[in-house]
């Protein structure tokens, strides 16, 4: 990523504000993040631990990195033209189609209002502005000062080196405000921001290439054990899928003969 996007003054940008944080905060905060990540005992947790450790080490060495900023970057190749992908993303109101934690985004010119599904069903909201854009190439946005969740995001579209499609890189940085809000944010990210960004991008790819996001939520199944049922209860339907509305009308249980009967049954070879 080599984006030039500092339109506002350094004081007001996320990075500008983060730079003012003391190095010791980076060391302590990074260490805590690492400990938390390790305690998750998962891939995402490991990533978080890695990010945290990196933050702590970098903080100790250079004293410049933000305290508990979480930075995630993921790349997928999508077999569609860059401009088409850019156009879809440029309308932020489309983002909830493939970003699971988002409930809605409404845009007003350069400004947008984001609503995410927070813990315990309480929505988390913030306002953001489009910082920079280059049609067919990149978009950069960030939350406005005063937003509960301080974040910054960018998406970049580059023609794939093999000439087939577009390499799409999403980078997100969240700053952990600490306290109650920090806890809420961690929950919002599922504690696994790496995984969340990766899966969001995978859904974006499917939507752009195949015109739908694969799902099995709502399909029939036999009796589940309690444990499996609990696991499945956390699976949500995709925003793009038709939500199941009870059984099909023309349901025909046993008795109705299929149109094509093939050869007769019963006679072994």
């Amino acid at each position: 990523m080599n984006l030039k996007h500092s339109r506002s003054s350094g004081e007001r940008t996320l990075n500008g504000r983060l730079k003012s944080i003391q190095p010791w905060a980076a060391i302590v905060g990074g260490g805590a993040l690492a400990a938390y990540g390790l305690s998750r005992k998962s891939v995402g947790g490991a990533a978080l631990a890695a990010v945290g450790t990196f933050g702590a080490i970098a903080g100790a060495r250079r004293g410049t990195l933000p305290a508990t900023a979480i930075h995630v970057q993921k790349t997928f190749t999508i077999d569609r033209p860059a401009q088409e992908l850019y156009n879809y993303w440029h309308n932020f109101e489309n983002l909830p189609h493939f970003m699971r934690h988002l409930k809605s985004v409404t845009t007003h010119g350069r400004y947008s209002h984001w609503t995410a599904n927070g813990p315990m069903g309480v929505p988390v909201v913030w306002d953001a502005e489009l910082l920079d854009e280059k049609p067919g190439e990149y978009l950069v946005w960030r939350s406005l000062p005063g937003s509960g969740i301080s974040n910054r995001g960018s998406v970049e579209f580059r023609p794939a080196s093999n000439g087939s499609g577009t390499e799409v890189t999403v980078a997100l940085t969240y700053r952990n405000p600490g306290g109650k809000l920090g806890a809420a944010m961690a929950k919002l990210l599922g504690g696994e921001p790496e995984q969340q960004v990766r899966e969001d991008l995978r859904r974006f790819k499917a939507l752009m290439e195949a015109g739908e996001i694969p799902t099995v939520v709502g399909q029939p199944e036999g009796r589940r054990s309690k444990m499996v049922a609990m696991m499945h209860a956390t699976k949500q339907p995709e925003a793009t899928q038709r939500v199941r509305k009870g059984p099909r009308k023309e349901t025909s249980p046993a008795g109705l003969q299929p149109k094509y009967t093939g050869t007769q049954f019963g006679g072994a070879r």
Partner: protein
Amino acid sequence: MKALCWFGKHDVRVETVPDPVILNPHDCIVKITRTAICGSDLHLYDGYIPTMEQGDILGHEFMGEVVEVGTDVKQRKIGDRVVVPFTIACGSCYFCKQQLWSLCDNSNPNAAIAEALYGYSGSALFGYSHIYGGYAGGQAQYVRVPFADVGPLKIESDLPDDKVLFLSDIFPTGYMAAENCDIKDGDVVCVWGCGPVGQFAIRSAKMLGAGKVIAIDRIPERLKLAQEGGAEIVNYEHAPDLIETLKELTGGRGPDACIDAVGMESHGHGIDWYSDRAKQMLGASFDRPFALRQCIQSCRKGGVVSIPGVYGGFLDNFPFGAAFGKGLTFRMGQTHMMRYMKKLLDHVERGEIDPSVIITHRLPLQNAPDGYSTFLKKQDNCIKVVLDPWGEGGNA
């Protein structure tokens, strides 16, 4: 509807479950007229495939009639009679465009799980564990089929179901196994395993110009069927040194290509087989690659080892030195179904091959649990079980 559900090792049951509905715009619903138990279903039945969950609906070889289509389905129409391939492919990603249909990027909702295990995810499959997508399978009365315009092959002729059903998996799978051998006129192809896929691999190798096909198994009726398909047969239980036997049968050169149509639950004899079996029973390894080792050992220098048999995890005692030392080529993977279905249908329609010859058992869906057990134990000369989802239960 009625559907066959998995509940654990050697425990499958026919249950009443809700009918499937359209969930995505390219879905269709197929009313199933004929379905079958695949040899690879036995890996699920034996509990060797990870990420199965109680209540999963099995079955990936099926055909029937389209009874409902999603809003974005253009080609398939209600009333179409279709054979549905076991792989699910979107038709628009890089891999689908390269005809590598079984490597589709966009059909597996659980791609993250497959990525964690394999680095990248292949396409989803019907009724074959959650790592392959967790899609409900087709040993049922109805099934939801995603990407209805991509996979399902419309059957225009009035050929009976039993003659076209196997275009859903095993016929194309056997054919791709043979095609992967890069057969030149007169080549010797050796096939391990004379189950359904092996039978189609034998016949396909002949179709593709093999001079000699050698078939290896231990079950007399399977060997007999292989012989009827044009193969020379070797019962490995009567061939204590199989590698030497094959050498003699191939003028001392070894087979030009070897097909492992057995997969992860190979049977055999000798110390390494017992060691594999013990490890698998202890859960220390998923796969026992006995047949695969023999393929590698007996293949001629510069030959091809083609692997349609299913493997899921890690291989122990894999003779990689032999593979390297002889400069072997390995070809494998789930079948790129849509490359082959139409072409093989033409062969069937022209009467050049009758896939139904492998069918030994026809049962109503209600009796599918018996079918699994009989097929696993190879009782009653069982080679292939087909199921009628609408047949009356009771004695088959």
